[in-house]
């Protein structure tokens, strides 16, 4: 009987600490984590950024919110693949993205389409495509290098 208050205190503490079972499976995916972030937490996190960067981040958040569940699922899958790349390969992907964005608008669009096709190809098809006369005629040397870098990332080993 003397230990009853102590037992009650422990029961309360453990129910508060451990009792709330996650309502959904815990996701490690950043896309889902960003989506699940409460608005006030988002605001608090973003308000520390300089105004121009904050505006850009807010726009990206809103874009994420507007996505359909299927689009978010696909993006989450891509993010998982990206996370499995080595840090060096992740950095290569970011550089590739910056280089693609530095291209003129029409060429950027041409390479975006090419990237979409290459992603759907098998490994052998990719090698064949990059060495083909068609690729040499459609894309200049710099653009072909970017496409080769993209294929290398697709073929890169996962961690």
């Amino acid at each position: 009987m003397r230990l009853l208050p102590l037992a009650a205190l422990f029961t309360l503490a453990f129910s508060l600490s451990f009792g709330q079972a996650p309502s959904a499976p815990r996701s490690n995916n950043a896309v889902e984590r960003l989506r699940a972030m409460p608005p006030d937490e988002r605001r608090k996190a973003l308000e520390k950024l300089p105004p121009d960067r904050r505006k850009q981040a807010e726009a990206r958040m809103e874009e994420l919110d507007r996505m359909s569940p299927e689009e978010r699922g696909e993006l989450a899958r891509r993010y998982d693949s990206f996370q499995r790349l080595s840090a060096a390969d992740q950095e290569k992907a970011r550089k590739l993205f910056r280089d693609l964005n530095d291209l003129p608008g029409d060429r950027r669009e041409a390479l975006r389409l090419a990237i979409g096709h290459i992603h759907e190809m098998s490994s052998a098809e990719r090698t064949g495509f990059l060495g083909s006369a068609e690729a040499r005629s459609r894309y200049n040397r710099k653009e072909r290098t970017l496409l080769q870098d993209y294929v290398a990332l697709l073929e890169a080993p996962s961690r």
Partner: protein
Amino acid sequence: MKDLRPSCPLHSEEHASLLLDYCARRLDPDRKAALEAHMEHCAACQELRSAQRLVWDSLDSWEASDTGWEFNQRLQERLRQEGRPAWMDSVSTWREGISWKPAVPLAAALALWLMVFPPNGFNSSKPSAPQQPDQLEKVLEDVQMLQQLPLGRR
């Protein structure tokens, strides 16, 4: 009238029983008064009276502790437990020997700690998101990149 005043009882075998009765508080009022009248003039008896008063005062201020009651309870409990296996007696003895008092504040502090700082991974119904602005911005940039740059196997 009979003289009740005793000669010094310390020196008189005849009156020695007076002292024993006085110490036991059994003396009738007249004999007690007579003895105390004698004590007013007898240094040896005064000394004895002082010592005896110390005893009386001590007895008057002494309060019975509940040790005797607890002892009786334990004794009765032991008698009731006659026939129980020896290991049960050992367990009872062991439990009685434990003091839980020092553990109470420690346990309370631990419980409070668990309430204020729950262990990671147990108290979150939502997955945690990047909290640092730079980290959040980087994740958002990566997400935007991956919208245009599909990575991973088909």
